[in-house]
């Protein structure tokens, strides 16, 4: 197999990716790309980031052998890569630290970000507090409603939250508004994108910063199992936690890789966020990738119980990995994810976020009584505290009682 080397210098993963933005943003993206290339070779930058990973985030995150779940499934040996133990409770902080260090190097003085579940918003607000930079978070009003604990967290951290009322009032629209803010404030503002989506160099940059997950997991599994895993499983919205885990394993052709999308009420219904199962290639937020769209190329609204996966697009690299068949993608419904959310809590004493609950649900469904003697790593990319109210409501539990 040829060594994996994506994207191209102009940000293409095969035919996907690219930079489809207006001329107001083009010079900025080119400048960002240049600065990013420069810091990749900067030893001081690397050292600074690694120090923060270790002492601020608490990396490396552990690789937990989920014995009870493994027994329950009666299939492979399951390991959780526990990025939910990170400071701020999800993998998002890895990327935010990388980008804010870059913003500092570029002399930017104002930070903006979009957020869906609020995890990226919290992570951005956190690094802004740490570095003393003003922080503006765009968040759909629908998401503000269903992710209240994270809204309060961001406010405590000193961020200004700007509710987005347009479109479906969720992640896609928050990203539109953040891009508009950037166009208006090109000179002083750095836009921290939280997913492997958006125009080049974001998909590459976010993947690189998140790939610490996969690098650690690789070392950890080699230590305990003396071999590489047979399967990797992660949930995919825009796709940053998944790319972070997958990337360092892409050249290991014996490692099978599975991405799990949110199918909402079903991948064949209109209420879905399963972009790669139900979508077609198109352009959204500056990048060519699979999107949910109608025959005229109008972007559809996505649906998922999990705000972090409620996005009608997906990162261009995932689109490419799907097309070259290196990664297989499957959809999991709201209902299945909610069940897995409870199963994992009861069996492992870990309350997962609704996002990785999708990955868990797929694992339970597809691996039950199968693949014995195999080893699986699942990216447990976020913890469930933020979802308690949503889950309680969906399950029918009255949290006020």
């Amino acid at each position, binding site marked *: 197999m040829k060594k994996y080397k994506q994207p191209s210098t*102009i940000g293409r993963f095969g035919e996907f990716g*690219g*930079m*489809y*933005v*207006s*001329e*107001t943003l*083009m*010079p*900025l993206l080119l400048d960002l790309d240049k600065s990013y290339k420069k810091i990749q070779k900067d030893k001081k930058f690397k050292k600074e980031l690694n120090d923060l990973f270790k002492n601020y985030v608490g990396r490396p995150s552990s690789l937990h052998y989920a014995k009870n779940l493994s027994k329950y499934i009666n299939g492979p040996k399951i390991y959780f890569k526990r990025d939910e133990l990170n400071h701020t409770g999800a993998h998002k902080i890895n990327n935010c630290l990388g980008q804010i260090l870059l913003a500092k190097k570029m002399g930017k003085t104002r930070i903006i970000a979009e957020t869906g579940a609020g995890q990226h918003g919290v992570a951005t607000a956190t690094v802004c507090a740490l570095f003393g930079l003003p922080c503006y978070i765009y968040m759909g009003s629908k998401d503000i409603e269903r992710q209240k604990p994270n809204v309060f967290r961001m406010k405590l951290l000193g961020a200004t939250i700007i509710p987005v009322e*347009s*479109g479906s009032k969720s992640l*896609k629209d928050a990203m*539109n508004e953040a*891009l*508009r803010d950037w*166009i*208006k404030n*090109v*000179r002083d503002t750095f836009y921290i994108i939280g997913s492997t989506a958006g125009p080049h160099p974001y998909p590459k940059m976010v993947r690189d910063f998140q790939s610490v997950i996969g690098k650690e997991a690789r070392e950890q599994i080699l230590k305990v199992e003396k071999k590489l895993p047979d399967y990797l499983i992660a949930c995919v919205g825009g796709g940053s936690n998944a790319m972070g885990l997958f990337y360092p394993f892409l050249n290991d052709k014996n490692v099978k890789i599975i991405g799990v999308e949110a199918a909402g009420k079903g991948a064949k219904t209109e209420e879905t966020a399963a972009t790669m199962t139900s979508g077609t290639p*198109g*352009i*959204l*937020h*500056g990048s060519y990738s699979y999107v949910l*769209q109608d*025959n*005229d*190329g*109008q*972007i559809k609204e996505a649906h998922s119980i999990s705000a972090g996966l409620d996005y009608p697009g997906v990162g261009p690299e995932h689109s490419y990995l799907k097309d070259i068949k290196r990664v297989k993608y499957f959809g999991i419904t709201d209902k299945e994810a909610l069940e897995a959310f409870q199963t994992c809590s009861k069996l492992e004493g870990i309350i997962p976020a609704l996002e990785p609950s999708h990955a868990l649900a797929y694992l339970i469904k597809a691996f039950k009584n199968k693949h014995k003697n195999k080893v699986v790593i699942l990216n447990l990319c976020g913890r469930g505290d933020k979802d308690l109210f949503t889950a309680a409501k969906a399950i029918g539990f009255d949290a006020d009682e």
Partner: protein
Amino acid sequence: MQMNNLDSLPKKKILSLFMTCGFPTLNQSKKVFNEMLSHQPDIIEFGLPFSDPMADGPIIQEANKLALRSKLSTQQSLNLIKELSKSKNNTSFVIMCYLNTVRKFGLNKFIKNIKSIVDGIIIVDLPFEEEDEIKKLLSKNNIHLIKLISPMTDKKRSQKLLKNSKGFIYYISATGITGSNKLDYKEINKNVKSIKRMSSVPVLVGFGIKSKKDVIDISKKTNADGVIIGSALIQKYFDIKMDFNKYLKSLKKFIQEVKI
């Protein structure tokens, strides 16, 4: 080959009016464009509605949303433009849209639909780096690909962008999205002058032009050849609380004012 109206634009005080197709409804949209056409502006820009117009401000965004309420299709927008072209006379027709609309419709089919009707096209999110294939096809069919230059575009990049440019140059006056921010005439003048040293086609200033005063100021205080007005035309509709008949009247009055 049929001639392209953009090749015979006047030397100065060029007026380009932007309007979203299908706004507020498809039928009313015809009346809006007919009103615009009756003033014989130099250019009319037809915005094709897109669900995620990320380079446009809240006003045009709202117009897109209203137009798409009734599931307006790309074909319906193109048919509207075709119908209006019968009374186009010397006015240049320019389409302004996002790339996903063209891609999904099919590039060849799109060009077939607009050939000898439309003189130019602005694809907002198609950067110079990605334009080769589209530009070739357009030029074969005598449709000019209009270039945008922003205050962030440096000299080296401008040179590349402006090479062989045709029709006009769309200079984005405020570093901002359509319909926002204040105008900085000094900066506009400096940048327009610099563009003019690199290209001989007219330079029009767009983004943030809201009144007769703005139009006069651009003409007096800068070296620009004309202006593009968009958001301000649409804003009128919301100003009069969406009363369509009143809107047509206020549109007429406004266009008469800005024709200097």
